C-alpha cells in the first residue's frame, strides 16, 4: 500500500449462500483519488464482495468502515446515502421510465412537493454530458435504447448521485470502443477530483490503462494486492488460477476419432447480436465444453439448439440430417432426442411446489402414458431406476421438490431428462451453487452417459470442470468461437487467455494485446 489513509475498509468479510462459501474472511481497502482494480475468475467472490459494499446483501461476519467509522447498510439506498454507488452488471434501470426519470430516480428534485421536471431535465443533461453521452435524449424511454446506450445512462445515473466511492462491475462489457474511451476519460477525471473508484473487469488492457492498485480474488479470498504494473500478466494469471487441483474427475477415455460422424452439428449459427457464425460438431461419446467468460453467447447457443430462439440463421444437423427445431418439445422428440439441463433450476428446471415424483416424470409423460392416462407402475419403475442411478437423497417421492438441497434438486432436473434416454445432452452450468460431493457425482455421471453413447455439450463457468471433464473445449468470445482446445491443450492458462481474447498460445500472455 502507498501509505495513504484508506477511505473505506472491509475486514474479515464472510458470506455463505446455503452450503457454498462465496467469501471467506475477505479484506479490501480503498483510497480516495485512486482506481482500484479487482481481478479474479468467475465465481471468485468479486460480485458478492461488491453486493455487500453496495448494501444489496448483508455479510455473515466482518466489518466495514468508512472514514474510520464502522457501518452497515440495510439497503442499496443506505449505501448510496453514505456515498457508495455501484453500477451493476445486470442493469438497474426502470425500462418504462424515461432516461431523465431514471437518472434522478433515487432523489428527484422537488418543487411544491412535486417533481420539478425542468430541474430534472437539467440534472439529467448535466449527468449525461459528464458521462460523455450527451447524444442520449433525456426524454427517451430506457426500454427503447440499445444496450450500450443503457449502460451509459447507468453511468450518468451513478454520477448524478455524487458518489465518493464509485464501483463499476463489468460496466464496459456492453460498450462500443468509442464509449469506452469516453468513459476512461471520465473515470480519470473523477479520480483527479478525489473519488475512489473500484473497477471490475476481465479486460486486462483496460486494467493496465486505468488502475493504480490491483487486488486478486480466488475462491472467496483476496490472495494478493499490488500496485498496478508491478506484476506481469503471466504472474497475474497464476494468481487468479492458484494451485488447488483436486482429483475429483473421472479418467477420460481415448478420444473419439475425429473421423466419426457427428451426432450434433451446427453450421454458421447466428442470432441477433448474441451469436456470430458458430459452427461446431459433437460426436456420440464425446463431452464437448463451452468455455469463455460468462455471457459470451454460451447460454444462447444452447437455447438455439433447444428451439427456444426465433429468427435463428444457419443450420442444425442431427446425425448428418438437417433439422428444424421449433420448440423444446420438438427438440426432445424421438427423432432428435435432445435434453437441456437449464442454468436456473428454480425457474426453468423445476416446479418447486410440486412433488419430486411429479417433477421427475414431466419430460417423459408422453412415454409413460397410454391414451392420456399415466401408467403408474411404469412411472414408478422408471423413477426408482433414476433415484437409484443418481442417488437422489429425498425423504420421499411425494414431498415438494423445494424441500431438497440444491445438489439433490439439480439431480432431479437431470434425472427428469434421463428418463427419456436422450441422445444429445446440453448442460448449462449445471454445477453452479452445489456442493463438491454432488459435483463429483455429476462429473462421473456425465462421463458414464457419454460412454453409453450420448453426445454432450457442456457449458461451465468453472475452468477446472472444463479441464477435468471435456474431450474438447470451444471458447466463446462475443458470440463467436474464438478457439478450440483439444485433449492436452485444455489448460487453465489456455482457457483464461482465450477467454480474455489475449492472443498467443503458450507464449507469455502479453498486456494490452486485447482486440
Amino acid at each position, binding site marked *: 500500500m502507498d501509505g495513504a489513509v484508506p477511505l473505506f475498509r472491509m475486514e474479515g468479510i464472510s458470506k455463505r449462500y446455503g452450503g457454498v462459501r462465496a467469501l471467506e474472511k475477505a479484506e479490501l481497502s480503498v483510497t480516495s483519488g485512486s482506481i482500484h482494480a479487482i481481478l479474479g475468475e468467475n465465481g471468485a467472490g468479486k460480485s458478492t464482495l461488491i453486493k455487500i459494499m453496495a448494501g444489496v446483501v448483508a455479510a455473515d461476519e466482518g466489518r466495514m468502515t468508512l472514514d474510520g467509522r464502522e457501518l452497515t447498510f440495510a439497503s*442499496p439506498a443506505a449505501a*448510496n446515502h453514505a456515498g457508495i454507488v455501484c453500477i451493476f452488471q445486470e442493469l438497474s434501470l426502470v425500462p418504462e421510465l424515461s432516461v431523465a426519470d431514471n437518472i434522478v430516480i*433515487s432523489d428527484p428534485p422537488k418543487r411544491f412537493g412535486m417533481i420539478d421536471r425542468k430541474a430534472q431535465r437539467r440534472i439529467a443533461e448535466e449527468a449525461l454530458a459528464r458521462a460523455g453521452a450527451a447524444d442520449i435524449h433525456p426524454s427517451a424511454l430506457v426500454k427503447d435504447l440499445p444496450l450500450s446506450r443503457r449502460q451509459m445512462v447507468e453511468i450518468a445515473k451513478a454520477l448524478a448521485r455524487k458518489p465518493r466511492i464509485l464501483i463499476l462491475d463489468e460496466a464496459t462489457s456492453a460498450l462500443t470502443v468509442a464509449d469506452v474511451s469516453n468513459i476512461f476519460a471520465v473515470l480519470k477525471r473523477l479520480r483527479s477530483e478525489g473519488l475512489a473508484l473500484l473497477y471490475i473487469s476481465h479486460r486486462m488492457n483496460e486494467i493496465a490503462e486505468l488502475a493504480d492498485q490491483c487486488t486478486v480474488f480466488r475462491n472467496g479470498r483476496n490472495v494478493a494486492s499490488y500496485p498496478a504494473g508491478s506484476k506481469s500478466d503471466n504472474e497475474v494469471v497464476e494468481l487468479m488460477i492458484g494451485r488447488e487441483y483436486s482429483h475429483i474427475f473421472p479418467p477420460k477415455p481415448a478420444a473419439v476419432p475425429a473421423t466419426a460422424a457427428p451426432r450434433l452439428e451446427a453450421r454458421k449459427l447466428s*442470432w441477433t447480436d448474441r451469436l456470430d457464425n458458430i459452427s461446431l460438431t459433437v460426436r456420440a461419446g464425446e463431452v464437448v465444453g463451452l468455455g469463455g467468460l460468462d455471457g459470451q453467447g454460451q447460454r444462447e447457443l444452447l437455447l438455439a439448439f433447444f428451439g427456444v430462439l426465433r429468427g435463428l440463421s444457419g443450420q442444425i444437423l442431427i446425425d448428418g440430417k438437417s433439422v428444424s427445431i421449433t420448440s423444446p418439445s420438438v427438440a426432445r422428440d424421438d427423432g432428435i432426442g435432445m435434453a437441456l439441463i437449464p442454468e436456473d433450476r428454480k425457474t426453468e428446471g423445476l416446479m418447486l411446489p410440486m412433488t419430486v415424483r411429479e417433477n421427475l416424470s414431466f419430460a417423459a409423460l408422453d412415454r409413460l402414458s397410454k391414451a392420456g392416462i399415466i401408467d403408474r407402475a411404469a412411472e414408478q419403475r422408471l423413477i426408482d431406476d433414476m433415484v437409484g442411478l443418481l442417488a437422489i437423497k429425498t425423504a420421499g417421492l411425494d414431498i415438494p421438490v423445494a424441500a431438497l438441497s440444491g445438489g439433490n434438486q439439480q439431480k432431479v432436473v437431470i434425472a427428469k431428462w434421463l428418463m427419456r434416454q436422450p441422445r444429445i445432452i446440453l448442460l448449462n452450468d449445471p454445477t453452479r451453487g452445489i456442493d463438491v460431493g454432488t459435483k463429483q457425482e455429476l462429473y462421473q455421471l456425465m462421463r458414464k452417459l457419454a460412454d453409453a453413447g450420448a453426445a454432450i455439450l457442456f457449458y461451465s463457468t468453472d475452468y477446472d470442470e472444463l479441464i477435468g471433464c471435456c474431450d474438447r473445449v470451444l471458447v466463446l468470445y462475443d458470440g463467436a468461437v474464438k478457439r478450440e482446445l483439444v485433449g492436452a491443450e485444455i489448460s487453465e492458462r489456455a482457457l483464461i487467455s482465450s477467454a480474455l481474447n489475449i492472443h498467443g498460445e503458450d507464449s507469455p500472455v502479453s498486456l494490452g494485446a486485447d482486440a
Partner: protein
Amino acid sequence: MKDWRYWLAEQRGTLLAFGIFIVMFVIYTSNHPAGFTANVVQTAANKGVLLAFVAMAQTLVVITAGIDLSVGMIFLLTNCLASWLVVGTPMQTTLGVLAVLAVGLLCGAINGAIVIYGRLQPIVATIATGAVYYGIGLLLRPFPGGSVNEDLADALTGRVFGVVPASLVVLLAIVLVIWVPFSRSVLGRAAYAAGSSETAAYMSGVPIRRGKFAAYTLAGLLAAIGGLFLTFFTYTGEAAYASGNAYTLFSIAAVVLGGVSLFGGKGSAIGAIFGALAFRTIGDLLFVFDFDPLWQPLFQGVILLVAVSLGAFALFRVRNRLEWFL
C-alpha cells in the same frame, strides 16, 4: 428526435383512447334523434363519469403491476354509506361527504397494507376485501333506500352555465387535484417504477412500498368519489352485487382500452377516463341504432377483445421464446 415526438410516444395510448372515444361519440350524437345537444351530452357525461372514477382508481393499482378487484365494492359501500350520511344541513352534508371519502381512503389503505406488508397477491387480497366491503354495504342497506342532499346532488349532476355538465367539471377537478400531483410526485414515480421493474427500483433506492401504498389508498378514495356520484344520480343507496362486479370488470376493460398496461409501469389515468367513456358509449351506440339491448354484453365483449389484441402485437417481435413467459 424532437421533444414533441417523445411526448407523442408517451401519450400514444391516451391519444388512441381519446380518438376511439371521439369517433364513437360523434357517431352516437349524429345518429341521436335529438342530436348534439347539452341534454344528450349531460346524460352521457353522468353515465360516463361513474365508470371514469372507478377506472381511475383501477389505473393507480394497475400501474404498480397489481390489480384491485375490490374497486366496484368500495364504490357500492360508499354509495350505501352516502345514502345515510350525505343529508341534512350544508354543514352535516359536508361532514357526510368527508366521512364517505375517509371510508374510501381507509378501504384502499387496508388493501394496500395487506398486499404490501402482508405480501399477499393483489388478486386474492382484493377479492377477499371486496367481499368484506360488499358485506358491510349490505348491512348498511339490506334493501335499496335512503336519501341524499338533493340540492347538492342536482348541482353536481346538472349543468354549469347551462352548457357544461357539472359532473365533467368535477371529474376534471379530481384529475387536477389527485391524478396530476400523484403522477408528478416521488410516490407516483415510485409506483410506476415498481410496476415496471421492482428489482431495478429497489436497487435504485426507490421508496417502492410507500409508492404502492399511496396507489392503493388513492384508488380507494377515487372509488369513493364514484360512489358519491352514484348516490347523487340515484338519490338512494343500494348494495347491488351484480352492479359492483360489473363496475370492477368494466374498470379493467376501461383501463386496457385507455392504454394502461396490465403488466404495470405504463399508462395514465387520463387514458383510462377516455377508455371508460368510450366503453360506455358502446352501449349508447346500440341504443341509437335500435339494437336489442340483449346484444350489449356480446358487443362490448367483442370491442374489448379487439382492443386487447392490439396490445398483444408486441409478442410477434419477441425473438427469444423464454421472454414470452416473463
